[in-house]
């Protein structure tokens, strides 16, 4: 089984040189820690920054400089600031190459639910609906099984959805899947996980790639 860090590490291998990338809150944020050597990417924060850097040291904290998770951050060489309309303009226009998001549920046709639990959590969608409606490439990083032991990879989302048919790949503690017309396609397994275990923990349609690789980590 993959740890959250390993999920992030695996997703980081999808990054390509020159990518503009938007990372959501939670596991997706960790992807920034594992950008492969020799790969240069620019991180977009939808509150109005391209070129997000690491957290500041104590003496460089600036209340006017935060990311979309409201955390204090820094800029890097080549950063730029802009307003929220332009920020979602570049997202809507497909300028952002990769979006990594967390999810509560994903369906086997690529629908995603990650903004609302009726009667329980009503915080709002923030920028998630804009991102999933327009991003060219969306990878979901999530735990495959909820606390009650139920799969979050379904034939149809039960929670209110954020967007339809938009997810391209899912990386979980069990492995990596592509969304295909035949459903979730297992392409890579986490170390020590069997295909039977995967089958038990996917509630939607599942197909197994002809060659399933086992992931390796340093």
């Amino acid at each position, binding site marked *: 089984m993959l740890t959250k860090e390993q999920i992030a590490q695996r997703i980081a291998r999808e990054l390509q040189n020159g990518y503009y990338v938007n990372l959501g809150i939670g596991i997706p944020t960790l992807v920034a820690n594992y950008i492969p050597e020799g790969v240069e990417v620019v991180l977009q*924060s*939808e*509150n*109005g*920054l391209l070129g997000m850097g*690491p*957290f*500041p*040291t*104590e003496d460089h*904290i*600036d*209340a*006017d*400089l*935060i*990311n*979309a*998770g*409201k*955390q*204090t*951050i820094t*800029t890097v060489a080549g950063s730029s*600031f*802009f*307003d*929220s*309309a332009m*920020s*979602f*303009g570049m*997202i*809507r226009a497909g300028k952002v190459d990769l979006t990594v998001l967390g999810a509560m549920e994903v369906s086997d046709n690529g*629908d995603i639910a990650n903004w609302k639990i009726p009667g329980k959590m*009503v*915080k*709002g*969608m*923030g*920028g*998630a*609906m*804009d991102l999933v*409606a*327009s991003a060219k490439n969306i990878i979901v990083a999530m735990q495959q099984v909820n606390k009650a032991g139920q799969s979050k990879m379904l034939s149809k989302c039960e929670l*209110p*959805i*954020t*967007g*339809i048919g938009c997810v391209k790949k899912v990386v979980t503690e069990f492995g990596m899947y592509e969304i295909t017309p035949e459903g979730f396609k297992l392409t890579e397994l986490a170390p020590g996980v069997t295909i039977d275990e995967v089958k038990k923990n996917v509630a939607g349609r599942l197909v197994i790639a002809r060659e399933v690789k086992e992931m390796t980590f340093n």
Partner: protein
Amino acid sequence: MSKVVKNAEEAILDIHDGATIMLGGFGLCGIPENCITALVKQGTKNLTCISNNAGVDDFGIGLLLKTRQVKKMISSYVGENAEFERQLLSGELEVELIPQGTLAARCMASGYGMPVIYTPAGVGTEVAIGKEVRNFNGKDYLMEYAFDTDFAIVKAWKGDTHGNLIFKATSRNFNPLMAMAGKITIAEVEELLPAGELDPDQIHTPGIYVHRIFQGENYEKRIEQRTIRKTN
């Protein structure tokens, strides 16, 4: 051409009960602290507030919620506020949640004199209920209306007496968009300068959009998530 007013109290004096107001900011970053304080003091009621977030319990728009001055919130994300959640679940507060990019575009459309925008955000979700869907080039889009708002209240880093504004870092966020959208736009700035002191090439919001401006005081600039790293 001077737009200068004395202070926040004077700037918001005619904001009446039942008014629709926009408040700039993302989280607590770039919020008009002075005007929020003045609105609490003035006691204006039944406000409809358009703002990306709703502050925290004891800061930002949270202060207006605590005093029950807000009838309706139009926002994209309202976590981090227990009193807000309480009023929402008890039905005391009306809330309309809309996608963040849609919120921004509806402000922009208003300031650009365009009645509607089309966006794919929310297609196929509960956000789309009751909205016109149009297909352009094989993709579905929702029609969303420009906001109609009585007052917009924004916070800038620097401004001049003509109302020209410059924002700093990510405190820009919704501020320039809302500044364009208000029938009356009020700007509070950290530093107010005589016209001519700001480089015209650096202006983010041209003064034509701003009706009242004043230099704010005692900015707290509270940080929601203070995250640091130990070393370089």
